C-alpha cells in the first residue's frame, strides 16, 4: 500500500475548510450555516489524520475523535437553537437575528 503524501491530505483539508468557510459566509439559511461548520470541522479533521499518518503517530486520529465528539455536541445544541429560532420567527434567515447589535 502506497502512502498518500502529506501534501495531498493537507490540500484536501484546506479545500474542505475553505468550502465550509465560503458556505458559512455566503449562506443566509441557518441550517446551511450549521452544515458549513460541519464541513469546516471535517476539513480540520482530515488535516489532523493526514499529519498523524505522516509521523506514524495515533495522535492525529485521536484528535479527530475529539473533533467528532465536539461536532456532535455542537450540532445537537445548534439544531436545538435552530428549532427554537424557527418556532419563534418562522424563518431561518440569519440576518433576521440581529437584535443584539451595539
Amino acid at each position: 500500500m502506497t502512502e498518500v503524501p502529506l501534501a495531498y491530505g493537507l490540500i484536501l483539508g484546506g479545500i474542505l475548510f475553505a468550502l465550509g468557510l465560503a458556505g458559512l459566509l455566503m449562506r443566509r439559511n441557518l441550517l446551511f450555516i450549521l452544515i458549513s461548520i460541519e464541513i469546516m470541522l471535517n476539513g480540520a479533521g482530515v488535516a489532523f489524520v493526514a499529519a498523524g499518518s505522516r509521523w506514524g503517530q495515533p495522535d492525529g486520529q485521536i484528535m479527530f475523535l475529539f473533533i467528532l465528539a465536539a461536532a456532535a455536541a455542537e450540532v445537537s445544541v445548534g439544531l436545538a437553537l435552530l428549532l427554537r429560532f424557527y418556532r419563534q420567527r418562522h424563518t431561518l434567515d440569519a440576518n433576521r437575528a440581529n437584535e443584539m447589535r451595539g
Partner: protein
Amino acid sequence: MLGLLWLIPAIPFASALALAVLRFPRKVVAWIAVSSIAASSIISLLVTFSFLHAPPAGNAYTEVLWTWMRVGDFRPEIAFYLDPLSLIMVVVVAFVSFLIHLYSTEFMAGDDGYSRFFAYMNLFVASMLTLLLANNLLLLYLGWEGVGLCSYLLIGFWYRDPENGLAGRKAFIVTRVGDTAMLIGLFLLFHDLGTLNIQELMQRAPQHWHLGAGAAVAAGLLLLGGAVGKSAQLPLQTWLPDAMAGPTPVSALIHAATMVTAGVYLIARTHVLYSLAPPAQFAVAVVGAATLLIAGFSALTQWDLKRVLAYSTISQIGYMFLALGVGAWPAAILHFMTHAFFKALLFLAAGVVIQALHEEHNIFRMGGLRKKLPVAFWTFLIAGCSLAGLPLITAGAFSKDWILWGAASAANGSMGFWIVALIGILLTSLYTFRMIFLVFFGEMHSEVTKKPGMAMLIPCIVLAFLSIAGGYVKTPFAHFLETALPWNAAAAGAVHISEIGSETVAGLVFLLGLVLAYVLFLRSRSYAASLTDNAAGAALHRFWFSDWGMDWLYDRLLVRPYAWAARIDKGDLIDGFYSGIAELNVLAWRVLGLTESGRLRWYAAGIAAGSIIYIAVVLFL
C-alpha cells in the same frame, strides 16, 4: 492595677464600634454608651489609686501592647504612657465625658440619630484618651486626627441643615491647617532625633540641640501650629464659634473635655522642647495673651448664648497657652482641670435653658429664668463665678490667679503679660455676668416649655460641686505634677509683685467687672445702648461681633481667591488632557459600536479575517 490602662481607651472604642455597626433599642444604646464611659472613668480612678499608692519606678508607667509597624529604624508602638500629667488629664476627661454622656441620654432623647450620636461621642472620647495616653507622637497624632474627625461628624450632626455641614467642614479644614504644620513638625523631629517616642525625644533633644537651636525653634513652632489649630487660638480660632452648630452636649464635650485642650496637652507634653527653644515658647505666650484679649472682647458683643461661651472658651484656652508660654506649666494644667468642670457645666446648664425655651439662643429674648429653672440658675451661677474667678471660693479663681501670678513670676513672665491677663479677668467677669444678668434676671421674655429631668440635672449638680471644690487641690496638685511638669520660676528679684498682691488685684478687678456688668446690663440698659449708639461705638461693636473681622479677612484672603482660581482654572492643560482621554474613549466607542451590526455572518467573516491576518503575521514576519 496599672495593667488595666489599655482598657481606658479600648472600652469606649469598642462601644463606639458596637453602636455604629449593630442596631439596639434606644434604652440599650444609652446604657452601652454611658456605661462604657463610666467603666473608663472607674478604671482611670482605679489606676489613679494604684499609681498614688505605689508609684512606679520613675513616677511613670509604660504599657506596650504591640509594635504598630516596622520600617527600618522607625518602630512606633501601640503603647500607653502614664505619668502624673497624663493621669490628671485622663481622669478629668473620662469623668467629665461620663457626666456629659449621662446628660445627653436625656437631651438627645427625641432625636432620630440617637445611636449614631452616641457612637460618635464614644469614638470622640476614645480618640481623646488615646491622644492623652500615647507614648509616641505618631499614636498621639492618630488620636489627634480621630478627635478632629469626630468633631467634624458631631458639629455637622444635624446634617439636614446645610449650615451645620458647612460649620463641620470649616472646623475640619481650619484644624487641618494646624495639623499639617504639626505633621511637618513630626517629620522634622524624626529626621533630627530619629525617634517619635516622646520620652526618648525629650531625652535626646537637649543632647542634640543647644539652647535656642534653629531646629528646636522650628519644631516648637510647628507643633505650636498644630496646637493652635486644635485649641482654636489666634489665628486659627475661627472654627470654634461656628462649631456651636452641633448639639449642646457636643459643644460641652469639645470645649471642656476633649479637642480644644489637646493643644495645651501637646505643648505640656513636649515642654522640654519648648524650654530648649525660648522663641517658640515666647510665641506660645504671645499667642495665648493675644487670643485671650481678642476672644474676650468678641464675647462681650455676642447675642447667642452658646457663642458667648465659645468665645469664653477660646479666651480661657488663651490663658492656658499664656501659662505654658511663660513656663507656669502646672498652672496651665490646673486651669485645664477647673475649666473642664465649669465650662462643661456652663454648656450643660445652657443646654437646659435652650431646651426649656424651645431652642432659643438669643440671650436678649431670655431673662427672668431664675425662678423657673432654679437648678440651672444656681449651677450656671456657680460655673459663671468660677469662670470669672470669684476669689477664695471657686475653683476658677485658684487656677486663674495662679496663671496671673505665673505671668508675672515664672521664668518667661513679665509685667506686660500680667497686665494682659488682668484685663482678661476684667473682660471675663464682664461678659460672664452680662450673660447671667440677661438670662436669669430681669423680665421674662419667653415661656418655659420643658423642665429638665434628673439625667440632665445630676451632671450639672456634680459639676457645680467640682467647679467649687476643684481649686482646693492646688498644692497637692502642684506637688504631684512636680516630677512630670515642674514650675519654671524666674530668678529672685526679677518679680515686682507678691503673690498675695496679685491675687488681691485680681479679686478687685473681678468685682469691677461684676459691678460694670450690673450697671450696664441690669440696672440701666440705656447705658449699654448708648455705648453702641454713636458711630464709633457701633463700628467697634460690629468689629468685635464679627470676631475682629477674621472670618471676613479669611474669606477675602483665602476662600475667595481659591474659589476664583478653581473656577478660572477649569479648562487648563491638565484638565484638558484628562477630558481629552474621556472624549477619545467616547469616539472609540462610536466607531467600534458600528461593527456590532448584529449580523452573524459579519462576525464570522471578522473572525476569519482576523485569523488569516494573525497566521500571516506569524508565518511571514
